């Protein structure tokens, strides 16, 4: 592949993935409103389009045309940059996430992935760890007490839970023996005992790791029961109290894009990625992995929404205690057990 085709293919892939991701973000919001609505004896959006399907578009238009207020006394450069930082880092990590196997059209082969790097997982972790800047800076630059408290809570929470999140993944890495997300998925192919799929969630006690990952991921994405940075009943809206219109929408997008990233990672690392039964003609066989992958992501997102409809919110000190005193030791224990098992084998 020469450099021109490389650039063209990359641009096309990036644009496509970005489009799909942003659409998915919009429809995750719709899904959330719909699912939570049905859980709570109401309908969710119904007015705009069939089943309210055009609601995300209406929301987008609304955000675009809303008055964009910049309160006085904010630290303007960072106040404007913060939502962009948040959304950029939220979206960037999708670059290394594989969605499926290879696409083969005649002579042309390309993976369903923007780029495959052999430290894919580390890249995702690195980029998401930068996402905290958006939150922290928005909290600080807004020059509002609620925002500041929200920003502080968010950065402390994200830094703390990142450790547990990272450690929960190490077990999987030991079993897979690679940082490449594609490699990790390939390590989960096949079945053991004839029928149980060879997913990491079923292997070597990694169900514990999955639980830790799930919990830490909720905290990383600031979702209930860990949504303290924006706990609206305490901090009005936390770090984005002072934001309106498109800047607010960017934070919103960042949150949902992060949710999707986290869901993708969970599917790749624990649920066998895009593995699933393949049948039919060859074009179908190429596209089916995408379907299986999206299905897993959907299930994961559904659990997110379900939890939101069920649980109350932690208190700040309880959240910290839970992260440091329970999740982190559990993650370390899981890591050691996994390592010992692998070595003994």
């Amino acid at each position: 592949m020469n450099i021109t085709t490389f650039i063209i293919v990359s641009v096309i892939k990036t644009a496509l993935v970005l489009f799909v991701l942003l659409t998915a973000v919009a429809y995750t919001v719709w899904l959330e409103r719909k699912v939570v609505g049905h859980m709570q004896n109401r309908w969710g959006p119904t007015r705009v389009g069939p089943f309210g399907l055009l609601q995300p578009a209406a929301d987008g238009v609304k955000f675009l045309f809303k008055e964009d207020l910049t309160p006085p006394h904010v630290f303007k450069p960072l106040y404007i940059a913060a939502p962009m930082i948040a959304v950029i880092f939220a979206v960037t990590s999708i670059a290394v996430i594989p969605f499926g196997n290879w696409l083969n059209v005649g002579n042309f082969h390309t993976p369903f992935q923007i780029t495959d790097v052999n430290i894919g997982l580390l890249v995702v972790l690195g980029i998401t760890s930068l996402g905290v800047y958006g939150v922290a800076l928005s909290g600080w630059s807004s020059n509002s007490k609620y925002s500041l408290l929200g920003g502080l809570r968010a950065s402390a929470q994200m830094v703390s839970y990142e450790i547990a999140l990272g450690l929960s993944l190490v077990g999987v890495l030991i079993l897979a023996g690679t940082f490449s997300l594609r490699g990790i998925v390939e390590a989960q192919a096949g079945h053991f005992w004839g029928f149980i799929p060879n997913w990491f969630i079923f292997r070597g006690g990694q169900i514990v790791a999955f639980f830790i990952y799930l919990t830490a991921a909720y905290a990383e994405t600031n979702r209930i029961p860990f949504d303290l940075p924006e706990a609206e009943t305490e901090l009005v809206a936390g770090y984005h109290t002072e934001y309106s219109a498109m800047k607010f929408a960017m934070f919103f997008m960042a949150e949902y894009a992060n949710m999707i990233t986290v869901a993708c990672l969970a599917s790749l690392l624990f649920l066998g990625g895009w593995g699933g039964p393949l049948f039919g003609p060859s074009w179908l066989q190429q596209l089916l992995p995408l379907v299986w992958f999206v299905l897993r992501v959907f299930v994961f997102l559904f659990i997110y929404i379900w939890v939101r409809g069920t649980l109350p919110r932690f208190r700040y000190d309880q959240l910290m205690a839970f992260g440091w005193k329970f999740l982190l030791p559990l993650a370390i224990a899981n890591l050691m057990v996994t390592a010992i098992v692998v070595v003994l084998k």
Partner: protein
Amino acid sequence: MLHLILFSVFGLVCVAGAVNLLLQRHPINSALSLVVVMGSLAVEFLLLGAEFVAAIQVIVYAGAVMVLFVFVIMLLNAGVEEQTSGSRVAWLLGIPAVLAGMVIVCWALLERSDAGRAAIGALPGHPADIAQLLFHQFLLPFEVTSILVLIAIMGAVVLAARPESVERTKKEG
């Protein structure tokens, strides 16, 4: 070719960030400049083939250490620093010293330029290689460093602990 261009661009970004770090008057701007430096350094590592180091650079420095810096700045609500002309000794000694240092570094680099020069992207940066170095070749220094860091952490905890909590610990035994 592409790699070389990228390498040079990010090298410049890195230097510009470092200079900006010194010039900025507001601590938060300085901190963010440092983040830029870290980020572009990571890219340099990546381009050199040290992917693992690059990722760790971002995760540890940009993602954790600098976040704590920003955190502290936010908490203290540090304002703009006042501009001072600086002491004359610094001007007289500092500039020649910096120049001399740069000359020495350049000379050293040029002198050794042939030996051990690695092609871009050819450094042994794979996690397995790093592990080999850390846990076989340099195991002792690695462990000694970790003990040193542990002692430093303990010292920091003792220094940062509030007097009353130290008292309580003493009482409890």
